[in-house]
């Protein structure tokens, strides 16, 4: 049974969807990487993914209602 997760895109990742904040339906067992594949977002060296306010790895499995934020880590001063 598929379910919905929320997706929030920032910076250069905005171009991969019409909206910056939207819901997407995924199959059970889908990881962050699977979600990115579905949205055609490439894996990048400089990439930060938060799920429910916590940093996760690409293999993190998603659950119904998760809020995913994808942005680039920055460190310059």
């Amino acid at each position, binding site marked *: 049974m598929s379910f919905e997760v929320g997706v*929030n895109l*920032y*910076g250069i990742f905005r171009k991969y969807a019409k909206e910056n904040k939207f819901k997407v339906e995924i199959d059970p067992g889908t990881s962050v990487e699977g979600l990115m594949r579905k949205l055609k977002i490439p894996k990048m*060296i*400089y990439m*930060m993914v*938060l799920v*429910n*306010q*916590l*940093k996760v*790895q690409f293999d993190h499995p998603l659950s119904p209602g998760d809020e995913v*934020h994808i*942005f*680039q*880590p*920055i*460190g*310059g*001063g």
Partner: protein
Amino acid sequence: MNRILNSRFKPIVVNNMNKDIRKRINELKRKEEAPSGEVYQGLSLQVIETIAREFQISKREVEIAALENEVIPIKYHRNIGTIGIPGQRKLLKAKVAVIGAGGLGGSVIELLARMGVGRMVVVDGDTFAEDNLNRQLLCTEKNIRKSKVTAAVGRVGEINSAVEVTSHQAFLGAENVDSFITGCDVVIDALDNIPVRLILQEAARRLNLPLVHGAVAGFIGELMTIFPGDRGLGALFKPDQDIPPTGIETEIGTPTITPTFIAAGQVMEAVKIILRRGKPIRNRLRYFEVEEGKISEISLSTQP
């Protein structure tokens, strides 16, 4: 006995001196007219210097004494309508550490001096390079290969010589961080790499100091105030995972607009903390996409 005498008489001497300083401020103050037509009692740069010399005290002390007597150093007049005389006094009494005197740090230092934050600790071990000229306010064609902290001290002296600057020509590390930030009211992260930021955050937490984080890359910047109990950057970078030394800025560089933008936000946070006004941006990363004018907030977990 001597100690008792000292403790009895010293305050009287100080009180007399304070009275004399007050008297001198009242003699030398002058009526100034603000653009609104309001008339106020002001103290000029020259008078501040004269009184400091006469009483062998610092200019900062003269300015604090003036504000305590409702006399406004003219240089701060355009601050007063917004932060009030008590606010200006609090800023003059505050001590802020600026870690890094590059793109963010140069602008932060400039703004702190103009706000009239009375004491600054500036830490940077680096010298200027030509490719700093695009963004680092303290960098000029004349000071390439010269010390960044020396330039900071010079610049603050030119803008506001009442500000007392302690400079450390050193790169921050776990071994020296405590000696730089102990005794400060606020610490500003103007560093350029992530691992050292985590060292700074850990020290600020241990020493119970608020930290204002800022970082920039291209036309993107981020800002967050981290109080000692907050998770802060720990929500983004876990020590057990590989921490990248830098972010995307190594590829896309940093045009000057972004550090100037974020530095202003960092100084705003520092001022809010010192004056205890407004709501600091805690437990959320404020993410600025400067080119689009978009400001977003990414909430971070507060769970340990």
